[in-house]
């Protein structure tokens, strides 16, 4: 058996994935956009762009700013909404043979319930990632995402409705104690914690003297957040016994390895995809050649 046939499949909750390398939510759209560019079906899976009950237009431009150490974005959850997602986007995943986790968020318990109920009878997706951590919108789940009781409640509402799918709760790094929120998600029945979403940051335009973004604060991603994300993942891995999916600043195979060392069972590649679309595939290949780098079980390390 050649090294490249090594089994690096990973089970997260009730669902097995062929390997532990994913594309992060918001990075690869709904799955079709990168279809001709990279062989997404070789990945563990993709996490699709966060959707909401109603379509959202997102924030006014500019929405992206490059920095020497990464990028700031203020997309504002532009998305097609639940109905169009189920009607137009979900069926594509099957054609593409891509394993997908669907990212969702909402503003109220009722909305979360309605979205979860819409997905409950469906097939063609492997699980749901609850985005309780987007910094770029008012009134969605970020503020709630800091409240352990709320996180537990929402998690259990969704998990109840999709017991056979995997449920990941994606947390914000913009917190003093991520362990608290992670434990709440675990108590609510999450199958994994996805850590982390973007770090809040900003930038100014020296020619106008004004903030770049209308909302001032934006989501910082890319290599500059790697050390921060690694520490948050380590903290979460030492706070819960469910698996942790590591996200933040991965831009090399080595960076991905560090997440496994920090206690993650899987990783998601984000911003680096834009410069280096082959990176996720290279990480899969490296893991197949060195299956000992991967981690087969979650929980504290």
């Amino acid at each position, binding site marked *: 058996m050649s090294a490249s046939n090594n089994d690096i499949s990973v089970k997260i909750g009730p669902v097995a994935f062929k390997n532990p390398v994913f594309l992060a939510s*918001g990075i690869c*759209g709904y799955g079709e956009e*990168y279809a001709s560019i990279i062989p997404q079906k070789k990945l563990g899976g993709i996490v699709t762009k966060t959707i909401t009950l109603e379509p959202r237009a997102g924030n006014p431009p*500019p929405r992206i700013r*490059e920095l020497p150490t990464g990028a700031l974005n203020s*997309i504002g959850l532009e998305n097609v909404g639940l109905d169009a997602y189920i009607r137009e986007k979900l069926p594509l995943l099957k054609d593409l043979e891509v394993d997908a986790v669907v990212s969702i968020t909402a503003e109220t318990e009722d909305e979360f319930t309605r979205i979860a109920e819409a997905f409950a009878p469906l097939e063609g997706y492997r699980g749901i990632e609850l985005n309780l951590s987007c910094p770029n919108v008012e009134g969605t789940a970020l503020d709630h995402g800091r409240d352990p009781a709320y996180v537990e409640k929402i998690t259990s509402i969704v998990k109840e409705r999709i017991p056979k799918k995997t449920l990941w709760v994606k947390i914000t790094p913009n917190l003093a104690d991520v362990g608290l929120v992670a434990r709440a998600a675990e108590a609510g029945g999450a199958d994994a914690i996805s850590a982390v979403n973007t770090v809040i940051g900003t930038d100014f335009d020296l020619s106008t003297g004004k903030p770049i973004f209308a909302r001032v604060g934006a989501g910082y991603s890319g290599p500059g957040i790697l050390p921060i994300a690694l520490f948050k993942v380590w903290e979460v891995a030492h706070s819960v016994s469910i698996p942790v999916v590591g996200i933040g600043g991965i831009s090399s195979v080595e960076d991905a390895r560090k997440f496994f060392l920090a206690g993650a069972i899987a990783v998601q590649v984000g911003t680096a995809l834009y410069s280096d679309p082959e990176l996720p595939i290279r990480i899969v290949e490296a893991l197949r050649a060195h299956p000992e780098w991967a981690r087969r079980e979650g929980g504290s390390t």
Partner: protein
Amino acid sequence: MNFTRIEIPKPARFVSTVVENHQLSSRYFLMVLSKPEGFPDPAPGSFLHMAVPTSGRFFLRRPFSIFDCNGETITLLIVEKGEGTRILRELGAGETVDFLGPLGEAFPLLPGQRILAVAGGVGLAPLYYYQKFVSRTLDKRVCPECYQLVYGGRSEEDLFLSAIDLADEGSLLATDDGSYGFRGNAAQLAEVELERNPVDALFSCGPTPMLKAVADLAVQAGIAHWVSLENRMACAVGACRSCVIPVSAKEQAGKDVKERYKTVCHDGPVFNANEVIWERLPEP
């Protein structure tokens, strides 16, 4: 207006090499790349998303319109702006480049109709390529004067006359300082030309103020106008929703969508000018 969208091939990632970086003036250069195997014939208006090769700081890719493409090479016309374009300029023959492409919507085909194409600065790239593309791939004799290119630069240096066959091809040329051709900018020359020779449609690409002036001309003349826009990009394939511009909102039954955005990378970069909300275009 009756038009045909040119069919756009699926984009892919390609690795290629620099054939030559040809300096045209202090700020402009032509980057000639060897055309990698499997690279489809690009439509005029589409662009490449070029990786900036460096082991140093983080770089997003940089978008550049295709200036020319033949069996052997792909050529870009690049103006040096910041660090990314500087690094690209410094690449020598034989060095490796990595790009996604061809990307984006093209300028439409308008069979039998007369087009005035107005280009400023590096905005020349897609409109120059349109002319080549049409003359190579279609039967040009049907309408020999159907495509008139107007190009403006600051002075004769910006017209690259020794390197690019603009004058030979019958393009109309303008310089701000009058050192060659018409004295004024490309939009002013277009206005004069439009009075002399009415057309069915305007194409434009260049600095935003010039594009706005051309949009006004189109409205006054009551003719169609397609424009190639720019914006900062991350993915360049429509995935990240970074590069949007505001477009006139179309009613969406039952949905409270106050604004509508389209992506420059995937819905554009070529837009029908009358859907663009000019006042709210972001500074690229």
